[in-house]
């Protein structure tokens, strides 16, 4: 009699423990320990406090996210970075909101439960900047398979700013240099997009060599390039990005379909400049009437 009671108690506890583990709303997956992700998470926690569990992938030799989701049963997953997004590719039962990922739009078709915010600042910010710089011919190198959607959007808006985009398509990183060479004498400024084909660790230097040789400013998508020779950078505000993700998470948790949330552009961006490069290139502009926050590196 007592033995049956003990067995029943053990079974009860075994069934109860998973229920106890499902005690949070958001499973936060970070690709690695990074201060940028901390900023995003800080913004994510600002508007509303979700119950959450944070898993950093680099802390594990091989993290089984699907099992964690199955056992923890979070209501949604916040993936930060491409590695976290890749680790979430087999999750189907809960919505996934991805941030800080450059390949988010590539996976959209494969993951119907995927929503998020891409890393492309709205093109009007760049175009407005080029206008202020009085640069009419702006060179762009990109892989159409990755950034064709953005190019089309930019081209639609460019004529409104009186700017002509001189586009060079490159399907291979090794061709980037040739494409850059072909832009010599053709452009007044160079627009560096977060295209992982057009910009690699090996070819990033070439943009700034081109800038020095052709005396044209490079406008990049991250402040990190200012130290390499970029004249200005339209950088995404990570805290704002977190807030924007929190809003999307709130909608997802409230039952909004993931397809409705889709993938959106970041709202908060800021302009960073390198005054030395601007002075060397003779670029003078004022953005008093723009929406960009300006800081100087």
């Amino acid at each position, binding site marked *: 009699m007592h033995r049956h009671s003990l067995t029943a108690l053990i079974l009860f506890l075994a069934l109860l423990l998973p229920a106890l583990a499902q005690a949070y709303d958001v499973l936060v997956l970070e690709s690695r320990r990074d201060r940028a992700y901390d900023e995003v998470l800080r913004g994510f926690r600002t508007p509303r406090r979700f119950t959450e569990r944070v898993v950093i992938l680099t802390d594990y030799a091989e993290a089984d996210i699907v099992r964690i989701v199955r056992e923890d049963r979070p209501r949604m997953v916040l993936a930060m970075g491409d590695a976290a997004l890749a680790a979430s590719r087999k999750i189907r039962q809960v919505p996934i909101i991805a941030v800080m990922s450059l390949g988010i739009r590539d996976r959209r078709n494969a993951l119907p439960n995927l929503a998020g915010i891409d890393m492309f600042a709205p093109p009007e910010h760049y175009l407005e900047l080029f206008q202020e710089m009085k640069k009419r011919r702006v060179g762009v190198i990109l892989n159409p398979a990755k950034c064709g959607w953005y190019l089309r959007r930019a081209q639609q808006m460019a004529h409104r700013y009186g700017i002509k985009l001189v586009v060079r398509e490159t399907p291979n990183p090794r061709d980037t240099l040739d494409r850059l060479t072909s832009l010599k004498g053709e452009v007044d400024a160079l627009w560096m997009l977060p295209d992982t084909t057009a910009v*690699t660790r090996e070819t990033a230097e*070439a943009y700034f060599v081109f800038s020095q040789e052709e005396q044209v400013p490079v406008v990049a998508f991250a402040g990190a390039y200012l130290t390499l020779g970029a004249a200005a950078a339209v950088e995404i505000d990570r805290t704002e990005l977190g807030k924007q993700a929190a809003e999307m998470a709130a909608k997802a948790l409230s039952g909004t379909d993931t397809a409705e949330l889709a993938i959106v552009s970041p709202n908060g961006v800021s302009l960073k400049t390198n005054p030395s490069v601007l002075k060397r290139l003779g670029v003078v502009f004022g953005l008093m009437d723009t929406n960009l926050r300006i800081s100087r590196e």
Partner: protein
Amino acid sequence: MALPALPKDFRASFRFKLFAIFTTVTAVVTLLFISLFIITEIREQRRLAADKVHLLAARLADSIRLPLYAENRETLQRLAEETANSPEIHSVVISTHDGRVLADLHKPDTIGPDELLSETVEVRSSPLGASPESAITSNRRAPEPTLIGTVRLERDTRDLKQRIRGLVWTSCLLALGFWLTVSLLSYLALRQVTSSFNNLMSGIQIMRNGNYGYRIGVEREDEPGRAAIAINELAASLLERDRENQRLQEELLSAMRLEVQEEKKLLMAKLIQTNRMTSLGLLASSMAHEINNPNGSIRLAGQYLGRAWNDAMPLLQQVSAEEGDFSLGGIPFSTARDNISECCATIDRNTDRITHVIQDLRSYSVGERNELYPGVDINQVVTNALAIIHAHGTHTDTSISADTSPQVPVITANYHQLEQVLVNLLMNAVQAVQGNKGGIVVSTAYNADDDEVLIIVRDEGTGIPPEHMERLRDPFFSTRIDKGGSGLGLFVANFIVNQHCGKLDFASAPGAGTTATVRLPLTPPPRA
């Protein structure tokens, strides 16, 4: 290395040794340093060449990063040609990370692989280059640059070898010049420094040849100069000592000459004395012959008178008894009766003694061997010797007494020789006590332990100085040579005692008299 051309003196000189040591040490040190310099310089040249090739390769690698990534062969070829324009670069090879050669430039010279210095540098992505992924996160950790390809440069080292050869030659010439200069300067310095030594040594050499009057010139107040002063003082002292020695030697020679003359005089005196004794011997021998005949007649006459007196005695006694006492020769018969018998006995005894004396004189003078006879009474010898001394008459104020022992046994000896020994000892004793009013005692004794008889002559004279004790038995030693002494008395006495296998001892102290002891065995061992 032999140095036959150099004189031995020069090779042994202080200057040469210092010069040789200094030049050898300088040569060794110079060789060592120049070798180290050459080795270091060769290594440095090789290192610099390697660094230069590495820098060229690194510069090329840096400049071809983008065209190599883009595999732009034209640009790579152009950059490779620019690098190969450097005359020492033999070849430039640019390859991708998977080994495909995109640029290969070789100069037409045929060079062995051992004459090439090869340097390969990897072409990696810029460490400052940021991928979009790292840029959007502002990841500040420097990513590991990715390998894009390699650049291999080969440098022709023939010019390097030629440069090293030139360096070796230049270094050797400089070292030789340095060594020669230092050697010349050291020689000049040594000549200046050692001139004092040479001056000192030449002066010492002159003094060594005996010229102590030479003085070394003092050039400077350095060590050799002070040594020269000291040696000059030493030479002066030696010169003074030499003169003193010479003077002493002359004085010694003079003294020796005087001493030899004195000795010669003494020797001549002794020779004269000996000659006199020899003459005396001859005289004694001739006298013995002249005395023996009358002595024999006297003895025969005495014996005849004795026998006649004995025959006449009964008649004269009868006459005296009948007629009374009568005068005979001026004295009463009763007195003359015994005196005449005694006179006859005295004549017989003394003539017998004269016979023996004459016989001894003859034996002594002709060197005859004196025979020993048993039954010699030592006490009788003493009595006779004293009688002779008394008869000599030179001891009128000296008391001579005899203390003979009746237990002394007779011995085997030569009576007259022993008598001569005793007379000599007594004569010496008498001469020793003259003026001191002391006495002389002659005693005899028997030593039963050693079975010997003793004759002891003890005087109360002046004694014998210790320095004379050892020479008492030497011939011709006498303190009375100037007073007629021959220096043969004790020599002869010792000789006679030795002939009897006895011993003659003296015990004396200055002022305490002298004791002469004759020890004679009862029976001397047979003579060889």
